[in-house]
């Protein structure tokens, strides 16, 4: 297996190099997509299936879609040749930093304190999958702030209001593809959401897949260009943060501790929050792609 891992690691590095130093911008984005998938594979090899799912769905999928959408609209900056001193300085700086990181990560082997704590606290967390337990119970406050980050990103884009052309349908063939893919994504998202409790999965991955399905729907032109939907989607997107905050306050009312779920019902609370999050993340990610405010 050592060979397989080193091949993937080398492939990631190669794809990254191509993405960063490619002449043509579409080639760069394509290389970035390939790198995203390879990185998802390496998360898998590093024993982090939840993260691999998220990386594939969000890191490679959605970020790739965003980059492709913007690739043509952001022109190539005038490549003024930088003085060689700056190239050298930049090279030295980056080598020094990464060398230090390598040296630090290599020589140090102290056992992390978290696995013991997680295993000991897992039974009371109401879920078996430790990652979901950490995300939605032990460090639920991190996740709440993370949803706030998505909210802030949406608010920034609403203020900046880039002009997105209406999503032109890609062609007749896209329609049957979307007809098959969409129900599949809805089914998959539900499965992942439910499976999050005891196996890799959860709100983020389910939300991303739903968003992917919706984008495929949009590209197929099956639904009239989604104009009426924006307000509803924006409402849905904002709802996530609102629901999470209300849940946090409600939990505090019941148990006296912020985000402290009542003893027996932890699983129910987590599932409720996760389903609200899935819908809101799907709506947010879709709006990040198509832009929350219609600007002609």
């Amino acid at each position, binding site marked *: 297996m050592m060979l397989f891992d080193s091949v993937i690691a080398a492939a990631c590095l190669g794809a990254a190099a191509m993405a960063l130093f490619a002449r043509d911008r579409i080639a760069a984005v394509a290389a970035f997509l390939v790198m995203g998938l390879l990185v998802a594979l390496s998360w898998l090899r590093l024993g982090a299936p939840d993260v691999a799912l998220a990386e594939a769905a969000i890191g490679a999928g959605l970020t790739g879609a965003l980059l492709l959408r913007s690739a043509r609209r952001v022109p190539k900056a005038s490549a003024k040749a930088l003085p060689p001193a700056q190239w050298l300085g930049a090279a030295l700086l980056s080598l020094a930093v990464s060398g230090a990181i390598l040296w630090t990560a290599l020589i140090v082997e102290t056992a992390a304190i978290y696995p013991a704590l997680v295993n000991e606290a897992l039974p009371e967390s109401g879920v078996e999958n430790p990652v979901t337990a950490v995300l939605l119970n032990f460090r639920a406050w991190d996740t709440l702030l993370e949803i706030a980050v998505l909210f802030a990103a949406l608010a920034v884009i609403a203020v900046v209001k880039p002009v997105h052309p209406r999503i032109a349908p*890609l*062609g007749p*063939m*896209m329609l049957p*593809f979307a007809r*098959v*893919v969409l129900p*599949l994504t809805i089914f998959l998202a539900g499965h992942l959401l439910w499976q999050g409790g005891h196996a890799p999965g959860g709100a983020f991955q389910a939300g991303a897949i739903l968003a992917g399905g919706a984008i495929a729907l949009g590209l197929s032109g099956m639904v009239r260009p989604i104009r009426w939907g924006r307000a509803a989607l924006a409402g849905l997107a904002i709802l996530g943060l609102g629901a999470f905050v209300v849940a946090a306050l409600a939990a505090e009312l019941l148990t006296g501790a912020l985000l402290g779920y009542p003893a027996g019902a932890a699983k129910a609370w987590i599932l409720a929050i996760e389903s609200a999050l899935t819908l809101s993340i799907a709506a947010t990610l879709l709006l990040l792609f198509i832009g929350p405010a219609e600007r002609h």
Partner: protein
Amino acid sequence: MTALLHSAGLVLMIAGTAFLAVAALGVWRLPDLLSRLHVLTKADTAGVALIALGAACLAQSFTATLSLLLCTLLVALSGATTGHLIARDHLDFASSQEDSP
């Protein structure tokens, strides 16, 4: 029985990998876009299907086989559609080049 399935699985996996190798060679050697597309869609779909089948044999669990089947279906579907879309776009782009200069 399991030994037979095991060896069949291995054989299928090797065949699948061979297909993918051919696809990679094709992309590298063939001159223009359309022929590359041709090789890619064909070999990819076949290669992935074979590997999935081999993995199903090795895995011997029903749920694994079901999800592998789902993967094959999706890869085939999306591979074909993407190939078609790229080809259409290429042809539109090519035709617009001809009548414009």
